[in-house]
C-alpha cells in the first residue's frame, strides 16, 4: 500500500470507516515539496458498530494499518477534538507512530485554571453517575424498564470512559475495565485512569510534548509546513459565565456548577442505596458520608425496612405500599392499595440518564472546531467535532484579521465546501437555518460559487445506532437537508458510495465521482479538493 499523496495545491481528505465514530486523515502539499503534510483528526469508534464488507469486519486495526502505510507512521499534526470514546479509543493503537505536533482545545490545557475546574467537575460528576449506575444495576433484575435504562446509561458512560472492543460484551466489565480496575463489584474507581484518559496521554507523549492548546478567535494558525493553508479555530468558546449558569434551560453549555451539586446530591442517594460497598466507595472517592445529604432532619424519617412492617405505624405503609407481588390481575376489579405497579423504588434512578446526557452534551460542546482554509481560492474544510448549539453560536463571537482584512464566521462558513457533520448527524449538532439568520447554521455554509462543490461527511452507522444504541444518527431531516444542499454528495460510514440524486445530470455526477476526485474503498472515502 503506497503512501497517501497530496494534490499540487489543495487537500486530500480520507474519511475512515471504522464504525460509528470519527477518523480523518488529511494530506496537504508541503512547502518546498517533498512528502505531504499529514494531519490526523481523531480516531475512535463505538465498540460493536463496525461495518462488515466482503465477510470481514472493517475494524480499527485495519484502519490503523492503512494509516501506517499511508503516512509511513509519521504524522505532522494530530488533532483531538474532544475526549469521547468515539473519537479517541483507537488512538492507543498508534503506539509506534511519530507525531510532530498535537492540537487540543484549551480545555485540555493543564495550566489553564478554568480548564482545570471544568475537568475536576467532570470527574466528580462521573463518579456520581457511576454510583447511580451501580444502584440501578441492583434494581434492574427482572425489570425491563430498568435494564433498558441501564443499557442506555452504559452507552453514555462508555463515551466518557472509553472502553473498546476488548471490553465488549459484559457491560459491567466494560465499565470497570475501561477504568482500569479489577472487576470487583462496587470497587472504587478513578476516572483519571479511564481508557479515554490513557489514549489522550499516549498521544501527548508520542508528540514529545509539542502540544498546542487552542483558544478560539485568538489567532490564525498555520498547519506546520503545509503550503497554502490557514486554520481558523472557531470553538470551543471561553465563556466564564457558563460555569455559574443556572438557567433551567441553559444546559447547552459546559457541565455547570449547579448540575454538579445536583449530581452529587443524586449520587449520595445512589451510594446509600448501594449499602456498605457504596458508602466505602464514596469515602475512598473523598466524599463525606451521605447523612449530610438527607433532605429532612432524621427525626422525621422512618427507615424503609422497619416502616414496612405490618405492625408499624398502624400498618399504614404496609397496607398502602407493601412489598412483593400483590394485585389481582382480573378485570372489573378495583386496583388494590398496595399494588406492585404503583411502587416507585427505582424511578428516581432514571434521572441518571438525564445527568449522563447532560454530561455528554457538555463534553461535546468542548469540541475543538477548525476551519481549514485553502488560501488561494478561500475554500474551507470545516471540522466541527461534536460541537452543539452553545458552541455553534459562539463562532460568531469574534472575528479574525488576515492581511488587514476582517474575516467573520459568516465569511468563513460561506466558503465551506467540505463539512464534517457534527456528532454523527444528530439533532442540535447541526443547526438549521437560512443564510440571513443571525447565528451560525447550515444555511451559512457553501454559498455563492462555493455551493457547487459543497460535500458532507457523516460518520455514522445508522442501523447500529438505531438498533443498538437507540440513537437516531443521522437525523433523517438533517440527512435530507444535507443531500439537498450537497446535491447528493454526502458520504456516510455505512453507505458504500453516494448515490446520484434524480435532479442531478449524469454528466455532472460523473464529473464529481471521477477517479481523480473521489475514491471509495471498504476502508475509507477519499475526496480531493483543489485549490484552483
Amino acid at each position: 500500500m503506497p503512501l497517501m499523496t497530496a494534490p499540487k495545491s489543495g487537500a486530500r481528505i480520507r474519511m475512515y470507516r471504522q464504525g460509528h465514530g470519527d477518523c480523518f486523515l488529511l494530506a496537504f502539499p508541503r512547502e518546498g515539496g517533498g512528502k505531504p503534510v499529514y494531519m490526523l483528526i481523531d480516531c475512535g469508534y463505538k465498540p460493536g458498530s463496525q461495518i462488515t464488507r466482503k465477510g470481514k469486519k472493517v475494524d480499527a486495526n485495519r484502519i490503523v494499518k492503512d494509516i501506517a502505510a499511508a503516512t509511513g507512521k509519521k504524522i505532522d499534526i494530530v488533532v483531538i477534538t474532544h475526549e469521547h470514546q468515539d473519537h479517541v479509543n483507537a488512538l492507543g493503537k498508534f503506539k509506534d507512530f511519530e507525531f510532530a505536533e498535537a492540537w487540543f482545545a484549551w480545555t485540555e490545557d493543564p495550566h489553564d485554571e478554568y480548564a482545570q475546574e471544568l475537568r475536576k467537575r467532570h470527574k466528580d460528576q462521573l463518579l456520581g453517575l457511576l454510583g447511580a449506575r451501580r444502584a440501578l444495576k441492583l434494581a434492574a433484575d427482572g425489570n425491563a424498564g430498568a435494564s433498558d435504562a441501564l443499557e442506555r446509561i452504559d452507552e453514555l458512560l462508555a463515551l466518557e470512559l472509553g472502553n473498546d472492543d476488548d471490553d465488549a460484551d459484559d457491560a459491567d466489565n466494560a465499565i470497570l475495565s475501561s477504568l482500569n480496575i479489577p472487576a470487583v463489584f462496587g470497587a472504587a474507581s478513578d476516572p483519571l485512569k479511564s481508557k479515554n484518559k490513557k489514549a489522550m496521554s499516549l498521544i501527548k507523549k508520542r508528540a514529545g510534548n509539542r502540544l498546542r492548546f487552542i483558544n478560539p478567535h485568538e489567532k490564525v494558525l498555520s498547519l506546520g509546513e503545509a503550503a497554502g493553508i490557514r486554520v481558523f479555530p472557531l470553538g470551543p468558546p471561553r465563556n466564564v459565565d457558563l460555569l455559574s449558569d443556572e438557567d433551567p434551560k441553559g444546559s447547552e453549555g459546559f457541565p455547570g456548577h449547579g448540575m454538579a451539586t445536583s449530581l452529587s446530591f443524586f449520587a449520595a442517594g445512589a451510594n446509600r442505596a448501594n449499602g456498605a460497598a457504596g458508602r466505602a466507595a464514596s469515602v475512598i472517592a473523598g466524599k463525606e458520608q451521605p447523612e449530610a445529604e438527607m433532605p429532612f432532619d432524621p427525626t422525621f424519617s422512618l427507615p424503609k425496612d422497619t416502616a414496612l412492617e405490618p405492625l408499624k405505624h398502624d400498618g399504614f405503609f404496609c397496607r398502602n405500599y407493601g412489598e412483593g407481588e400483590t394485585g389481582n390481575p382480573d378485570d372489573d376489579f378495583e386496583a388494590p392499595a398496595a399494588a406492585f405497579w404503583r411502587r416507585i423504588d427505582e424511578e428516581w434512578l432514571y434521572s441518571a440518564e438525564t445527568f449522563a446526557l447532560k454530561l455528554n452534551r457538555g463534553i461535546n460542546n468542548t469540541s475543538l472546531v477548525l476551519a481549514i482554509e485553502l488560501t488561494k481560492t478561500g475554500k474551507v474544510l470545516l471540522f466541527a467535532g461534536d460541537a452543539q448549539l452553545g458552541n455553534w453560536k459562539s463562532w460568531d463571537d469574534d472575528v479574525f484579521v488576515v492581511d488587514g482584512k476582517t474575516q467573520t464566521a459568516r465569511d468563513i462558513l460561506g466558503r465551506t465546501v467540505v463539512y464534517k457533520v457534527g456528532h454523527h448527524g444528530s439533532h442540535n449538532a447541526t443547526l438549521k437555518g437560512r443564510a440571513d439568520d443571525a447565528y451560525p447554521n447550515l444555511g451559512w455554509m457553501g454559498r455563492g460559487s462555493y455551493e457547487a462543490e459543497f460535500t458532507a461527511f457523516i460518520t455514522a452507522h445508522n442501523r447500529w445506532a438505531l438498533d443498538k444504541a437507540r440513537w437516531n444518527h443521522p437525523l433523517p431531516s438533517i440527512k435530507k437537508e444535507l443531500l439537498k444542499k450537497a446535491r447528493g454528495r454526502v458520504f456516510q460510514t455505512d453507505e458504500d458510495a453516494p448515490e446520484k440524486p434524480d435532479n442531478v445530470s449524469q454528466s455532472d455526477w460523473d464529473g464529481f465521482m471521477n477517479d481523480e476526485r473521489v475514491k471509495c474503498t471498504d476502508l475509507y472515502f477519499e475526496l480531493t479538493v483543489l485549490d484552483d
Partner: protein
Amino acid sequence: MRVKTVVVETIIEGFFMTANTFGSHFDLNLTRRLRVYSVDPSLASRISTREINEITIDIPWESYLGGKAVSASSTHADIEALSHEDVKERKSSLKPGPVGEYVEVIDYDPASSVFYVPVDLNDPRLLASDGLAPSEADPQFHQQMVYAVTMATIHRFVQAFGRPIFWSNHIVIGDKYVAQFVRRLRIYPHALRARNAYYSPAKKSLLFGYFPVTAKDSENTPGTTVFTCLSHDIIAHEVTHALLDGIHPRFNEPSNPDVHAFHEAFADLVALFQRFSYAGILEREIANTRGDLSSETMLAQLAGQFGRATGHGSSLRDALGQCDRQSGQWKIREPDPFALDRETEPHKRGSYLVAAVFKAFNLVYAERVDDLFRISTQGTGVLPDGDIHPDLVNRLAREARETAAHILRMCIRAIDYCPPVDITFGDFLRAIITADLDINPVDECGYRVAFVESFRAWGIYPHGTRSMSIESLRWPGFAEAFARAKALADNEAVHAESIQVVGTKGRMMAQQSLDGFLDAGPDGSGTDEMLLRDVSRTKRKSFEALDLRQDRFDLWKQMKANGYFIWRWLMQDNEREVVGTLGLVIDDNKAPATVYRNKKNEPTIEVHSVRPIVLKTDEFGEQNFLVVEVLQRRRGYLDPEKQKKMDRTRKPLSRDEHGDFTYRAGCTFLINPENKEIRWVMRTAGTIVADSELERMRRYLTGDNLPNLNEFAITSPATMGLASTTMRDEPFALLHDQHEE
C-alpha cells in the same frame, strides 16, 4: 370533637352551580381550610411577594354523607368503626396520609430509603389552625400542601362537570384485556432527586422531585433544597395531567404536533387561572399595576414565576411577551398568527395556546372593568397618580377573579366536547364554543366572541371550517352531520334545505333505532368479549340511568356496562345511518385489511367512555345527557409501500400483528337518553379508512413535515426513541426532561 362549620364562599366565585352538583363525597356545607405556600419558598427571596407568600385555601370536606364509606381497600376495622352516628354527623372520611376519596399521599423517599410519617389533618389542633404552618423543613406540611392544592383542583373539575371524576383505568394487556378501577390518585411528594415532577399514567401517580441549590445560583436562596411539591403551580399542573388522562387517556398518544402541546397547555391553563382565584393574590398585583392586568410587570412576573416554578423556563413568558430591544422592558406580545407554524416543541407550542386563552381573558376583563374606570375617573379615563383607591382595587380584583373562574370553567367543560383522539388546538376552540353554547346560551359578557377573536389572532383555526363565526365553529348537530355525510356519500352538494329535510329524517330514524335498542336486552351475538363479560357479570338487562351519588366504583361499573349497549346499538345499525354520520366504518368490504376486526371479521369499534353531562337546553331547566366516545383503530406502517401491501391483503391479519404505529379515528357524541336525540357530533379529522389522515400521521411520526426551525428538532416521536419496545412508558417524564435542552 367539634366540627368546624364555616359557611365560606367557595373559592370559585360566580361559578354556575348546577342543580345536579354532586356532593356525595364532598359535603356541600363544610369546607376545610388549609395553609399553603402561594409562591415556591425558594423563589420568595427574589420575587417581592413576601407578604402573601402564604395563603389559606378552601377545599371540600370529605365525609361519608350519601356515599358508601367502604371500598376494596377498607379493612374490617374500618367498616366496624363506622357507626350510624358517624354517617349522620358528617364525620370526616379523610384518613392520615392524607388519604381521601380521590387522592392518597404516600410519602416514600426512595433516594433516601425512608418514609415520612403521614399527617393526620383531622387532629383537632390542625383543624383549629387551618392545618400545619407552612414549613420547608417539615415533610408533613409538604403532604398537607400537595393534598390541598390537588383537592382544590379536583373540586374545580367536579363542579365544572357536575359529576364525580375518574382516574384513567389500570390496563393490563395479557391473554385478555383487563381494565381495573383506580380509586385514588397517588401522590409521592419526595419521589425523585431531580429537578422534575411528573404524572405517571402507568403508576397513576404524581411524582415530585427535590434538588439542592448552591451558593452560586443567583435565582434561588443558597443552602436550601428546592421541593417541587411546594410549588402550587407545579402541583396544579401535574394533577391536571392526571385529570385529563382520566377523561381522555388517548390524549397522550402523539399523532400530531398539538397533542402533547395540548396536554401541557391545558395543565398550564388550569394552574394559571386557578392561581387567580385565590383571594389576596390578585389584589396585590392589581394595586401594583393600577388595574392593568396586561401590563408588563404583572404578567411578566406571573409568567416568569410560573416558568421557573414548573421548570418550563421562559417559554410561557416568551409566548406572552418579550423584552423590547431598545427600552429593555418586557412588553406584552402582539399575537402572531404565524407563530404556531414555526414551532413543534410541545411546551413552546402549548404556550401559544395559553397565550390565546389569556388574551381572551384580557378582552373580557377589559370589557367588564371599563365602567369601573369610567366611574372612578369621572369619565376622564385618567387615574390619579399614586395608588388607586382600595375599593377600586377590590372591585377590579373581583371582576378579574370572576372572569378567570368563568374562563376556566369554559375550558374544563370543553374537554367533554373534544374528539376522542388526535386533539388539535382548533378542535379545542370548537369544543369551547359548543360547550359554552350548551350552558350559557346568552353570552352577555361576550366570552365566546373573545375566544374567537383571540384564537384567530394567534392563527388557531380548526380544520374543515370555512369561517371563524360562532355558527361554523360549533360542532354539527346530528341532522347537519347526517346530511353532510349523506351528501358526501352520494356525491352531492349540501344545501340548507337538505340539512333540514334529510337531516331531520336521519335524526328521526336514528332516534327510533336507539329507542328500540336501549330498552332491549343483549342477545349474546356481540363478540366484544370484555363488554359481554361486564354485562353478564352484572346481570344487567338494559341501559341504566346513572345514580351519581353511589360509590364511585359502582358508578364506574355501571358506566362501563352502559358502554356495551351503545356498542351493540352501533354494530346493529342496519341502514348505517348513525354509523355513517358518526364517521364509523363497520362493513368488512369498506375497510382495508389493516383495520382491526373482531372474530366475525367486522371492523371493531371501541366504545371508549359513557359519561353523564348536564346541559341547559331550554329555559325550563337542565337535562342529563351522555357523552359517548367511540373509536376504531388501524395498523399503520412507516413504509408507505408496506402500508399499501398490508391494506390490500385478502387474508385477515393476525391480532398480534400491530404494525409500526396505531392510527385511530372516531367520534364523540352527546346523546339524550330520554328522547334519544343525538345532540352534537364531534369527529376526528378523518375516518378510519381515510388514507390521507394516516399518511399525515405517518409523516408526523417520522419527522418528515417539521416546519422551518432553528434546530433540527427532536420532538417528533420517532426521534425521541424510535420504536423502542421496552422503553419506559412515561410520556410526561420524557416531555419534562426533554425540555431541559
